[in-house]
């Protein structure tokens, strides 16, 4: 059986190329991510770092580990998806051959064995490539994590035999798991199908496809509906859910959705004979068009849905900050410089907020349990009265008026963490420990990494405050032009001075950049897989259409007309895939828009133009080029030799 599968494997190597690449990619990514994760777990926090620096390092390690974890899951999922769809496709295309084997006396277990051996061969080829590619991938990955700021410079992972073996085994398991469903379907091929030319009448929409497709579509529609009436955070979770489940739903239902959508393209396509032919092919070869469109649907829905959601959130953060801050100018400087701002003519109020290097330890309650926790970051020293005048929202409990002496206020970053008014925390300022009473709880904001605590300025030694980075919100005296004051501030050399609107936009942009850093890695990966899947589908389809193309040429089409016909088909499928993916993303963002109206009064939807502008031409380019190449290679031989020869 292994020898037979070797020959069939060689015969169909083009069909399997995509799956091999997918497995290789998966193994390489799994191995490199695990190696980097192991190195992170082993990494020692260097002695002699300040508490703040330690916390930052720990946070960045945790962030990198989370990102790597998501990478591993995504890689395994996509590898499984591509291997299983490749095998489903090849089984469908090889029905006649499989039926012939049954006719020659092959039993069902033997057919199962044949496909499993093919999967084993494919898995071995992919795994071997992947393990080798995994070594440079490890260096590339840790380099890019350092470049993106997730890991400190000088971080270097080392190779580990156990992890490499584990990744290799996973690659084989993924290949075998991926083939199981297809192998079961192959074993059900009846020998009689070898004798009927309609052998390809196999159903594309199987029962399980119907079931999972319609139920995920129902869940998606329900979520879009619920999303219309939820809070910002709820809407974000829902938007992410809609992107993922909606993508799965439409890709499962693509054998129905693609022909439906191709009807809409009908008027465009029917304007030429070739277009008409292409449209007929689209409708007829449902499996082929669906398997090209499905990865595009998933990619577009995920990329646009996820980045759109996060960018909208960033825009909302900016809008919210703009509303919170009641000032005419915002200046960034050190504490020492900030102290001079109040003396600049035209400045009425200057609220200096210095991020100070102290630690806060306390017990807080969450989900019915109390935790002891020490925080080093986001602790800001303020002057309560000017802070109150420059920041609109009132505390949801307590009052900032009482923020004097040994007291502390819980800022938005810790608002939901279960701190109680009247409780105490221990602060470590310089070498000194002091107990602080919680006197105010500020409401939460949308911002990720917002300030954690506010402490009164008098608690902080002047020398410490002078060195700390400070942000100053400035109100100018009535009747004064803020621009003139800004000029005077710049002349006095008090650091960067911006209008609050500009400052809020910059803040949103910074948030967006942080999102992009994470998503660049994941989406780059997703895009790569989608490209493999699309190329795979187009190549498989082209390779199996040799006879069809030959008939078309005998009927009177020139070779270039056949190529153009296939290109029109591929472009139409690409357009349909992109549109359906966009539909899912639009559904995801609809809830965000509604939540934005409730949270900040305007529907802030950030259309992710950069990914969109990369995706659309990229998708057309890839499908187009692959289609032309595979059609050219399928029409290389004289059509007459193909039309008469049958096997």
């Amino acid at each position, binding site marked *: 059986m292994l020898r*037979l599968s070797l*020959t*069939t494997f*060689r*015969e*169909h190597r083009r069909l399997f190329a995509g799956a091999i690449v997918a497995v290789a990619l998966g193994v390489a990514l799994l191995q490199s991510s695990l190696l980097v994760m192991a190195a992170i777990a082993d990494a020692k926090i260097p002695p002699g770092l300040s508490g703040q620096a330690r916390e930052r390092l720990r946070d960045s390690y945790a962030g990198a580990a989370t990102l790597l974890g998501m990478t591993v899951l995504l890689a395994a999922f996509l590898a499984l998806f591509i291997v299983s769809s490749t095998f489903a496709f090849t089984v469908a295309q090889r029905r006649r*051959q499989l039926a*012939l*084997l*049954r*006719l*020659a*006396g*092959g*039993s*069902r277990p*033997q057919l199962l064995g044949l496909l499993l051996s093919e999967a084993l061969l494919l898995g071995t080829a992919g795994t071997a490539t992947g393990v080798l590619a995994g070594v440079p991938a490890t260096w590339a990955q840790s380099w890019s994590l350092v470049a993106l700021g997730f890991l400190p410079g000088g971080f270097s992972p080392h190779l580990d035999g156990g992890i490499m073996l584990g990744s290799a085994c996973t690659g084989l398991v993924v290949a075998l798991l991926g083939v199981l469903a297809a192998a079961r379907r192959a074993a059900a091929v*009846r*020998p*009689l199908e*070898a*004798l009927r*030319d309609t052998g390809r009448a196999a159903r594309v929409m199987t029962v399980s496809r119907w079931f999972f497709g319609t139920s995920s579509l129902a869940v998606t529609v329900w979520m879009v509906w619920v999303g219309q009436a939820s809070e910002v955070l709820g809407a974000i979770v829902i938007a992410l859910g809609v992107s993922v489940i909606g993508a799965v739903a439409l890709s499962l239902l693509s054998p129905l959705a693609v022909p439906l959508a191709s009807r809409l393209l009908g008027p465009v396509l029917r304007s030429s004979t070739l277009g008409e032919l292409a449209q007929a092919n689209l409708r007829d070869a449902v499996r082929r068009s669906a398997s090209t469109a499905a990865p595009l649907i998933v990619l577009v829905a995920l990329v646009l849905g996820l980045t759109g959601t996060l960018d909208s959130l960033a825009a909302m953060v900016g809008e919210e900050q703009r509303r919170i801050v009641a000032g005419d100018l915002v200046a960034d400087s050190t504490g020492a410089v900030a102290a001079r701002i109040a003396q600049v003519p035209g400045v009425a109020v200057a609220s200096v907020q210095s991020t100070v290097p102290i630690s806060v330890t306390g017990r807080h309650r969450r989900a019915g349990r109390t935790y002891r926790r020490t925080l080093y970051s986001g602790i800001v020293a303020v002057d309560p009265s000017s802070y109150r005048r420059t920041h609109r929202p009132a505390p949801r409990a307590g009052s900032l008026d009482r923020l004097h002496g040994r007291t502390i206020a819980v800022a938005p970053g810790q608002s939901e963490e279960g701190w109680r008014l009247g409780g105490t925390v221990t602060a470590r300022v310089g070498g000194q420990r002091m107990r602080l009473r919680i006197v105010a709880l500020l409401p939460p904001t949308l911002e990720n990494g917002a300030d954690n605590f506010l402490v009164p300025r008098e608690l902080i030694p002047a020398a410490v405050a002078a060195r700390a980075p400070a942000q100053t919100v400035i109100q100018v005296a009535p009747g004064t032009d803020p621009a003139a004051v800004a000029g005077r501030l710049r002349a006095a050399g008090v650091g960067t001075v911006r209008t609050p609107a500009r400052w809020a936009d910059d803040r949103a942009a910074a948030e967006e950049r942080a999102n992009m850093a994470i998503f660049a890695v994941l989406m780059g990966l997703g895009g790569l897989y989608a490209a493999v899947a699309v190329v795979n589908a187009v190549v498989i389809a082209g390779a199996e259409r040799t006879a069809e193309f030959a008939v078309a040429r005998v009927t009177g089409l020139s070779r270039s007309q056949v190529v153009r016909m296939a290109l029109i088909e591929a472009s139409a499928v690409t357009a349909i895939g992109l549109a359906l993916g966009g539909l899912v993303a639009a559904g995801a963002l609809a809830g965000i828009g509604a939540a934005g109206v409730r949270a900040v009064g305007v529907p802030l939807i950030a259309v992710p133009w950069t990914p969109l502008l990369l995706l659309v031409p990229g998708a057309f380019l890839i499908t187009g080029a692959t289609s032309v190449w595979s059609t050219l290679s399928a029409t290389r031989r004289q059509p007459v030799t193909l039309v008469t*020869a*049958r*096997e």
Partner: protein
Amino acid sequence: MMVEQTRPGEMIRLAVELRGVTREYGPGQARVRALDGVHLGFPAGSWTAVMGPSGSGKSTLLHCAAGLEKVSGGRVLLLGRDITSAPDGVLTVLRRRTVGFIFQSFNLIGSLSAEQNVALPLRLAGSRVSRKDVRDVLAAVGLGDRLAHRPRELSGGQQQRVAIARAMVTRPEVLFADEPTGALDSTSARTVLGLMRGLVDAGGQTIVMVTHDPAAAASADAVVFLSDGRVVDRLVRPSVGAVADRLARLEG
């Protein structure tokens, strides 16, 4: 018109026997009866051709007799054994050892060479395959110099000869043939029919052959005519003229 049926107690050993076989397709109102109570026996060691107009149920009869299709009613016996409701495992073993197939579309595996195709059923059955046997058989059908060729590198007649070589090496007791010469020119067809004659005369194998071609039917020992799913006529030791005449009457 006389309808030929096998009578109980007949002394000829039957390789394949259909007893009141009915085969229906489609649901409810759209139901079509492709075979309508067919009683028919195919004597062992002889070659029977089945003829009839398009849609008369020839192919269905062949598929049911070979166990490729389940019957709606009646019984099918293969070498005295009732295969009417045999499970897939039993039918698989039968396909390896007892029955063979030759079809218009050659049914060769495209990725395997001629030699591998011939050896395939034996290898699937787990038997050791003697390369010499395989080569001898291919040489006997005149393909001694085409061992390593893939089906697509062979002409239609050559592909059909590979299929016959496969039937010779496994020596199935019953060979089912569906339009074996349908895609061949007359010279190739004559070669193939000659080889099939040899299987029956020298090997004692049984052939059940569906055909449209009176010349092919005339190579058989007997011809059975089907119309609307029933056996309507029969000729023993047929001549091309007699077959063509009966067929013209049926189709007219």
